[in-house]
């Protein structure tokens, strides 16, 4: 009975769709509800601070060269009045070009630049998509909570001397090496 079979199949389809009347929609009602974004989500880019509240970025330009679309622009300076070390004088990301690929985060040796789970960046004017350092720099450590480059690297900082970082030997008295 082919026609009956057809009708059965057609009605079955109707039923499958009709069943949905009794299930709750899966919709996330943005903007009242916020969607869940996993921690690895690559969204808005921020500059973070280390656990001590200092800017992490050392203006090494790695992120800028790693960026496939050249949307990061920064200028290094080491004005001793402001910081005791290299830091970016300005740091600009052109979000109208950025493709959120995460290469900058991957390249950054200090975990300074990070892509965070946020997507709300639409703008009425294109120039507002260019973010300066004051728009980028957040107050905390972002995704990598304890990392502090200066603790790892053998550089003297405000709260540690040379060679007091992780896995580092205590400073060697250079003079002791002299014959």
């Amino acid at each position, binding site marked *: 009975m082919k026609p009956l079979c057809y009708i059965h199949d057609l009605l079955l389809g109707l039923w499958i769709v009709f069943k949905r009347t009794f299930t709750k929609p899966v919709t996330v009602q943005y903007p009242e509800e*916020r969607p869940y974004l996993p921690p690895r989500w690559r969204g808005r880019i921020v500059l973070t601070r280390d656990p001590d509240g200092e800017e992490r970025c050392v203006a090494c330009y790695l992120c800028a060269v790693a960026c496939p679309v050249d949307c990061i622009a920064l200028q290094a300076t080491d004005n001793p009045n402001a910081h005791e070390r290299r830091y970016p004088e300005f740091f600009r990301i052109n979000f109208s070009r950025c493709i959120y690929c995460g290469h900058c985060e991957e390249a950054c040796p200090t975990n300074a630049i990070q892509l965070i789970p946020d997507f709300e960046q639409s703008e009425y004017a294109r120039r*507002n998509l260019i973010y300066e350092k004051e728009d980028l720099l957040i107050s905390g450590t972002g995704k990598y909570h304890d990392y502090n480059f200066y603790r790892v690297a053998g550089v003297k900082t405000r709260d540690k001397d040379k060679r007091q970082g992780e896995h580092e030997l205590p400073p060697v008295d250079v003079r002791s090496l002299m014959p």
Partner: protein
Amino acid sequence: MTGWRNGRLEGVRSIDGGDGSLTSVVGQSVLFAKLQDLLAWGRKNSLWPLNFGLSCCFVEMATSLTSVYDAARFGAEVVRGSPRQADVLVVSGTVFMKVAPVIRQLYEQMLEPRWVISMGSCSNSGGMFDAYSVVQGVDKFLPVDVYMPGCPPPPHAFMECLLLLQNMVGSERRPLSWWFGPQEVQKPIMPSMRDAKREERTRQREYPSIDVLPRTDILSPHFAGQPNGLSKDNS
């Protein structure tokens, strides 16, 4: 001060501020102003996009119509195939030199009032395709009302953008009729969202660590949204 709360822009007013040029022209008619509000409300809640997609971003635009995102909630799911019936041109994707005249033609074939959304880095500025065949930004030949960064912008971003556009459309004053009243479109001066959000953003401190998934139940059939508790700030 403008503020961004729950997808709604607070404090944006059209430039006449309710008692400016428009009403004085027509003679201080409260009724007229109310009518204008009503029309703006209607337009804003009935933004029909043109069914036109360029590339990857279009997939995300289409996804924003589907169940999890459901742009239909804003009355914007009536995707029209014909530009005569559409209100919004969403330039969703890479704008190629070969397709630029086509986009321009579609735009010209749309009827007043019409708006343009630029979706994705490619259409904002050429994005990653700084290449010989790609136009570096659709605003080189079209007036754009809202820009949406991302590559591709996730569907929620499309919705945010829709809300921004609604805000704009809702505070625009357009001529009631072509044969009387002022003819110019009074566009509100829209704020910079970057500035509006800066304070809240820079206050943020931490985000979840990336090596552990905080939630593993996100695939359960009715895992819904939540108040965004992911970022902790110290205030």
